[in-house]
Structures are given as structure tokens and as C-alpha cells.
């Protein structure tokens, strides 16, 4: 037997009060004259045995009454087969981390009710079932384990709203298990109150040692067919929109607005990426958004994007650059994408220190050494190496270029730490056979092949002109960085002086859009928990050391003893 409030047992010393009063005769009775004292003496002599028994019985009853009340106040717990805290019983001191998943997906509305409302109700019941002897933490989607009094945690639960941060349940459970496992309490428990999205389970598996119980609330029914805007990024004047969502959700109309003006409409299904050409606009920062029709989860129906339109670059091409470059630049010049100028030079030689250079390998292998010396003089970390093997181009930042074969090339070698420079997508922009093929190194863009059909099929492909456009306008001049972060849909600009030097586009994690619940096997395999419906969850919480609180029984017994005492004291003379 254990006690919820063992300090109350100090009150057991009060059980000695009736005996002490009886023994010490503390009360001084009043004096009175009474002539027939001989009758009293006789009556007392005849009743002595009965009175002694009565006094003894009263003493026992009163002592027992006090002892029962004190023990009941200490809330004794005994082993029980009945329900746990949820069933009205009590439990041994428990270290508990309650994970309340208020990630964006918890804002979904199912059967007319927000998922989060159900989660909060269950979480509230769990915290309310905790006792003063328990150690309780509350972990929300931000992953912070909050300790505090029961009332404070209840207030936190009540005030919880759908957050903009995704919760990785695997990592959260792993942290929670470590936290409770460090507590020297008889039982340790992690309760996962979540919509249990399949995508909420990250990589790996949470290790759950013996002595730690993990409970997971089972999701309600089937997943809603939700769609969300997973990504919206502008590259070279084209907005790439990717949709995410629950498997099986059909296509949905999306609308693209640029500075509030609708500039495009499209029908797309989750998983699809669609390019939407943006209209020609004046140079500057443009903010727009992509919106879907409202569905069960509203927080992922809109995503902002930012588009920086730079002024046309001034380009000068050396004759050695070849006819294909000259032709491409002519097309771009005609389309007002470039102008004659000295911003960017394209050729076999490096431009003066102030300008940018797209450096092609020399046609004559004997001039490679000269080119490398020039690069070294400029402090470049990259150089032309030996001839490389043919292969297709692989790149993520240049549309339409991937897969185009390269027949002849020089390897590009990093002679420094390889981290210097600031190209889009890193230093290496494109590669062939896993070896760098297009590299940004400070003011220099190094290409492993000449832009000639003898070296690569790129000049003969439709992607060549956009490739040259990207080389001179975007890659060579550099782009203002646009970062992405989790948060409410929006754009925040970084300002330096009077210039806007970058932007951060925020939105929910695309994985939140897939509301497909995790299978029981996945839950069991990653966090070692069984899925429990609400009733079983309530019954199983604090169930590791389930104890029954017998204080009510003791109080009833005390009441009975009090009634017997009253009867003996009043009804028997």
C-alpha cells in the first residue's frame, strides 16, 4: 500500500488523543453536593463492569475513527485490477510527457469539428488525471517540453492553437522517452495525442526502454482528401508550383496572383509540379501567392512566392566563344533579356577584375595551362583539369538542361576548400558523371565544355537560349537569396540600407498536407506504441502501476464507526 499524501499520516498521532484524555483525565469535573451518595456508589459498583466495557469500546471506536479519517486523508492506494486514473482510480507517482501535436494538420476539420479540439480534450483529461506526486511535461509542436503545475499545463493546453511548425513524432517521442527515463519515479509514460499523420513520423526509430510506456491516441476514421500548395518558386520567369496532399485526392484548381492580380489558373493534383509562366514585368521584387480552393485543412491552401526581376545584363561575347553563343545572345538581345555591355563577358579569357566572366575551356588544349594560371592569379579555387568522360548533364537549377549529353569536357578541379563562392544551389551548379561541369567561383563561372556541338548537344537543344539567359542574367551576376521557412504564408524582406538584399518566404511544411494516418504497424515500429481509441486511452493512461484509491471506502467505514460510536455513546446508558 502506498499513499498519495503520505505527510498526512502525521495526523495518526491524533489517534492517541482519546486514550491520552482517558488516561490523563484532563478534565476537572465540577463539584456538587449529593446526599444519596451511597446509592451512587452502589449503582456504580453494580455497573462497573458494564461501564468499563463501554468505555473501552468507546475508546476503541474513537481511536479507530480518528485513524480511519487520517488514513483516508493520506489517500491510500492499493493494487487494483480496475481502471486507471481515467476510470476514477489513482496511480503511483509517474513521470509523464504528454505530446500534444498542434502542428498545422491539427487544424483540419473532420465531421465539422477541429481535430485539435479532440486532441485538447484528451490531453486535458490526461493532465487532470495527474496527481501532485506526478512529474508532468507538456510537449507541443515546437518540441519544447514544458514543466509546470497541473493548472499551468491545463491552461497551456486550453490556449493551444494550430501552430505553423511540423512535429516530427519520432524525434519528439525519443526526446520524451529520454526525459521521463531520467526521472526516479515508479512509472514513466509518454502519451502521444496526435492526429498521427503518416508523414509526421521521421527517419529512424525511437528507442523505448523497459519501464517506459508509450500510448498513442488512434486517429478518427479515414483521412480527409486534402490538398495543399507544397512549393511555389520562380525560376527564370516561370513559377513552379508543386501540390501535396492526401493520396487519392483529385486535381484542384489553383490560382496565381501577382501583387493581387490574377496572372494564371491551373488544374493540378497532389504530387504534381506545374510550371506557370509569369508575365513580363518591370525589374524589382514581386510578391504573389498561389491559392487553392478551401478544403478541410485551410492552412496549406495558400503559399506565397517572391520573384526578383533583375534589369537586363550587359553582355560581351568574345569571338572565341563560338557562333552558338553569339546566336543565343542575339536572340536574347532581341528579346531585351540582355544588352550590349560589360557586366558579363563570355569567352576563353577572364575579364577585368570588376566584371563577371563565363569562362569556357580553350579550344586548344595547350592553352589550358594559361587559363588555369589566370584563374589562380584571380584567386580562384577551381581550375580546368584533365579531360573527362562523356555523359549527360545533371542539374537541379537549370530547367531543361538535365540529360543533355556531353561528348567532350575538362574536369573541373577544386584546389581550395571548395566552399568559396556563392552560386545558386551551391558551388557546383551542374555535373556530368558526378563530376563538376558548371561551377560558380566568385566572379567566374567555369564550364567544363565549350558551348559547341562538338563538345555537347546543348547548343542544338531548345534549352540552350534559356541556359545562356540563366548564365548571364542569373548565375553570373548572382541572385538575391530567397530563403524558405516554416510559418504562416508570407514574405519577409532583408533590407540593407536602401537595398533589398534578400527575402524569406514562409509557409507550412508540405508534409503537413498529407492527412493520411499512420498504420498501426508504423506507429508500433517507430515509437513502440499501440493505437488506442479514446476509451482505451483513458483506461490505459497511468496504467503501468494502476492503484485503487481506497480513501472513499475508509471514509465510509469511518462513517459506520462514527454511527456505532454515536449509538454506543447515546443509546447505551
Amino acid at each position, binding site marked *: 500500500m502506498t499513499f498519495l499524501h503520505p505527510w498526512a499520516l502525521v495526523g495518526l498521532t491524533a489517534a492517541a488523543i482519546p486514550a491520552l484524555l482517558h488516561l490523563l483525565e484532563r478534565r476537572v469535573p465540577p463539584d456538587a453536593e449529593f446526599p*444519596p451518595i451511597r446509592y451512587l456508589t452502589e*449503582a*456504580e459498583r453494580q455497573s462497573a463492569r458494564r461501564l468499563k466495557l463501554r468505555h473501552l469500546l468507546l475508546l476503541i471506536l474513537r481511536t479507530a475513527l480518528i485513524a480511519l479519517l487520517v488514513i483516508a486523508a493520506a489517500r491510500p492506494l492499493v493494487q487494483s485490477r480496475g481502471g486507471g486514473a481515467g476510470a476514477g482510480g489513482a496511480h503511483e507517482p509517474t513521470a509523464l510527457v504528454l505530446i500534444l501535436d498542434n502542428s498545422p494538420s491539427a487544424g483540419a476539420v473532420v465531421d465539422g469539428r477541429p481535430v485539435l479540439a479532440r486532441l485538447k480534450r484528451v490531453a486535458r483529461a490526461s493532465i487532470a488525471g495527474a496527481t501532485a506526486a506526478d512529474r508532468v511535461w507538456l510537449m507541443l509542436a515546437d518540441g519544447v517540453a514544458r514543466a509546470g503545475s497541473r493548472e499551468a499545463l491545463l491552461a497551456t493546453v486550453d490556449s493551444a492553437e494550430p501552430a505553423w511548425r511540423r512535429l516530427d513524432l519520432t524525434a519528439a517521442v525519443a526526446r520524451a522517452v529520454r526525459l521521463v527515463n531520467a526521472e526516479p519515479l515508479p512509472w514513466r509514460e509518454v502519451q502521444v495525442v496526435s492526429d498521427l499523420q503518416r508523414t509526421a513520423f521521421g527517419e529512424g526509430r525511437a528507442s523505448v526502454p523497459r519501464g517506459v510506456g508509450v500510448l498513442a491516441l488512434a486517429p478518427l476514421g479515414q483521412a480527409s482528401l486534402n490538398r495543399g500548395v507544397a512549393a511555389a518558386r520562380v525560376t527564370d520567369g516561370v513559377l513552379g508550383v508543386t501540390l501535396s496532399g492526401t493520396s487519392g485526392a483529385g486535381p484542384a484548381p489553383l490560382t496565381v496572383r501577382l501583387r493581387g492580380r490574377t496572372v494564371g489558373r491551373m488544374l493540378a493534383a497532389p504530387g504534381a509540379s506545374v510550371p506557370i509562366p509569369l508575365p513580363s514585368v518591370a525589374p524589382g521584387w514581386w510578391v504573389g501567392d498561389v491559392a487553392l480552393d478551401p478544403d478541410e485543412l485551410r492552412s496549406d491552401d495558400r503559399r506565397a512566392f517572391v520573384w526578383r526581376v533583375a534589369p537586363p545584363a550587359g553582355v560581351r561575347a568574345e569571338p572565341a566563344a563560338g557562333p552558338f553563343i553569339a546566336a543565343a545572345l542575339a536572340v536574347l538581345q532581341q528579346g531585351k533579356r540582355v544588352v550590349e555591355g560589360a557586366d558579363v563577358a563570355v569567352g576563353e579569357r577572364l575579364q577585368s577584375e570588376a566584371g563577371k566572366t563565363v569562362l569556357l575551356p580553350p579550344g586548344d588544349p595547350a592553352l589550358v595551362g594559361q587559363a588555369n594560371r589566370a584563374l589562380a592569379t584571380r584567386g580562384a579555387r577551381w581550375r580546368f583539369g584533365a579531360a573527362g568522360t562523356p555523359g549527360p548533364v545533371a542539374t537541379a537549377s537549370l530547367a531543361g538542361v538535365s540529360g543533355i549529353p556531353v561528348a567532350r569536357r575538362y574536369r573541373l578541379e577544386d584546389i581550395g576548400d571548395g566552399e568559396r563562392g556563392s552560386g545558386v544551389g551551391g558551388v557546383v551548379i551542374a555535373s556530368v558523371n558526378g563530376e563538376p561541369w558548371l561551377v560558380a567561383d566568385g566572379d567566374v563561372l567555369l564550364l567544363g565544355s565549350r558551348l559547341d556541338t562538338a563538345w555537347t548537344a546543348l547548343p542544338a537543344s531548345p534549352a540552350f537560349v534559356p541556359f545562356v539567359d540563366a548564365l548571364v542574367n542569373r548565375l553570373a551576376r548572382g541572385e538575391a537569396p530567397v530563403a524558405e521557412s516554416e510559418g504562416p504564408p508570407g514574405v519577409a524582406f532583408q533590407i540593407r540600407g536602401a537595398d533589398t538584399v534578400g527575402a524569406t518566404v514562409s509557409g507550412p511544411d508540405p508534409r503537413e498536407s498529407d492527412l493520411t494516418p499512420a498504420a498501426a504497424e508504423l506507429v508500433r515500429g517507430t515509437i513502440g506504441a499501440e493505437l488506442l481509441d479514446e476509451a482505451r486511452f483513458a483506461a490505459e493512461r497511468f496504467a503501468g502501476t494502476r492503484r485503487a484509491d481506497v480513501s472513499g471506502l475508509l471514509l465510509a467505514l469511518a462513517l459506520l464507526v462514527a454511527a456505532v460510536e454515536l449509538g454506543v455513546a447515546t443509546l447505551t446508558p
Partner: protein
Amino acid sequence: MADVRRIDLLDPAEVARLGGIEIVAQGVVEGFLAGIHRSPFRGFSVEFTEHRAYQPGDEPRYLDWRILARSDRLFVKQFEEETNLRAMILVDASRSMAWHGAPTRLTKRAYADRLAAALALILLRQRDATGLITFDEAVRQVIPARVKTGQWLRLVRGLLDTPDGRGTAAQTALLHLTGLLARRGLVVLVSDLLFDRALALTALRYLRHRGHNVIVVHLMDPAEAELSGPPEVRFRDPESPASVVVRPRELARAYAETVAREVAAWRAACRRHGIAYHHVLTDLPFGMALRLLA
């Protein structure tokens, strides 16, 4: 139905507030006699002396039926000793008698004084010689039985002049007064009987043996009949250092049984020896008490 204006039937404490013993006793006796219309006490002699004409109130049993048969006139027979009854009233003046269970009640001694005075007045009115002995552990007052004028006032004075005593040794006093009662007569003992029953009965039996008619009036305050009081109290005996701590509520039943047993024992013992015994509570109206004695 009792006449509520008769003070002999009123509460003794209220009656006592009307005045001193004389006034109270006279009022009680007047009311008492008016209620019964006849002499309550009669002589003990059986020696016939003369006839006299019947008067209303005379006992029919004393009618001379022969004269009635012969002359059709009513005559009653009178006897030698009819007016020469010698009555001696013994009043216990011990310390225990000076006690009452509530301020609204008379002490046993006050009740006994008034009852004795009333009884004496009745006896003297019917020309019975009446005397008084008061006693505690010793005989305090002895007023021989007389029938002369002023005897009642002497008796009353004797009662008033006897202070409350300390202890009680009734058998000593009773034995002493047997020597004072040479002629047979009526002995009325008014006491709370808080003394050794066996020894007291020895003396009373001796009186009875000497031919006296003995009446024992056992006075008791109602608070002595039923135990009550605070939850716990130390009771002290006024006549001795003895004391006892009791819880009246838990001892009440046993006490009541003990008192009932004691009263029954007195009654049985008295009956066994031809002694009249009356248990009188001090809240009993005087008229009712006198009727017990009649």
C-alpha cells in the same frame, strides 16, 4: 377534581412562599380538612364510655344500631382513649436533609418541617397529645406530647430552633427516644433515611415491639430519585468526606434501579415489621402527603 384554590394541593415550594411554617401549616390543614370532611386520625382505644348524638361527618361504623333499631334515632358510640392519642413526630435534621436538587424546590428539611407542623396541627385539633423530637447524630429537641393550648406553637418553635445538623446516626436517636415514649402511641418518623437501614430498623422494630404505631415518611428530592447533571461531575457527600466522580447520563439507569431497590427494601422491611412506610418526594403537595398518612 381538585380545588385549585386549596393550598394543600399546590406545589410545596409555592406554598412555602406564602409565609412561615405556622401560616403554611394552618393553610394546608384548613384545605386538607375541608377536602376530606372528617377527622383523619382516630383513637386506638376500644373501651366504650358513652353515646352522643350523630353529627354529619361521623363514621357510620360507630353508629349504635341497637338504639337506632329501638328508637329510630342516630347515636354514635364514644370510646375511652379517643382523645388521648399520644403522637410523637420525629424529624430528621441531619445535614443531608438541608439539600434540594433545584433552587425552585424546598429542601427536604423545609418540607419535613412544614409537613410535621401540619400533621401536628391536625392531631392537636382533634385533641391528641402531640410531641416533637428532632435529631441528627444526636437528639436535638424534645418537646413532650401535650394537648394543651400553645402546644402547636411550641412544636413549631422547636422545629425552627433546630439548626441543620451534620451527620446522621438515626438509630442512636431512635433508641434514645424509645426511653422517652413510655406510653403507647403514634410515632411518625420524617427522614430521608440516608443511614444504615438495618440499624435503623432495629430501633423502629423496638418501638413497634413496645406497642407504638410507627409511620415512616421517606422524604426524597426528585433529583435524588433520578440522576441528572453535567456530563461529568464529582458528587460529594455532605455528611462525610466521601466523593465520587460519575457521568450522570451513563449511570442514570443503574442509579434509578438502585433507588427503586432501596425504596422497595425499606417498604418491604417496614411491612414485615408492621410499620407504615410512605415514599414522599418533596414536590408532592402537602395535602397529598397528609392524605398518605391519614
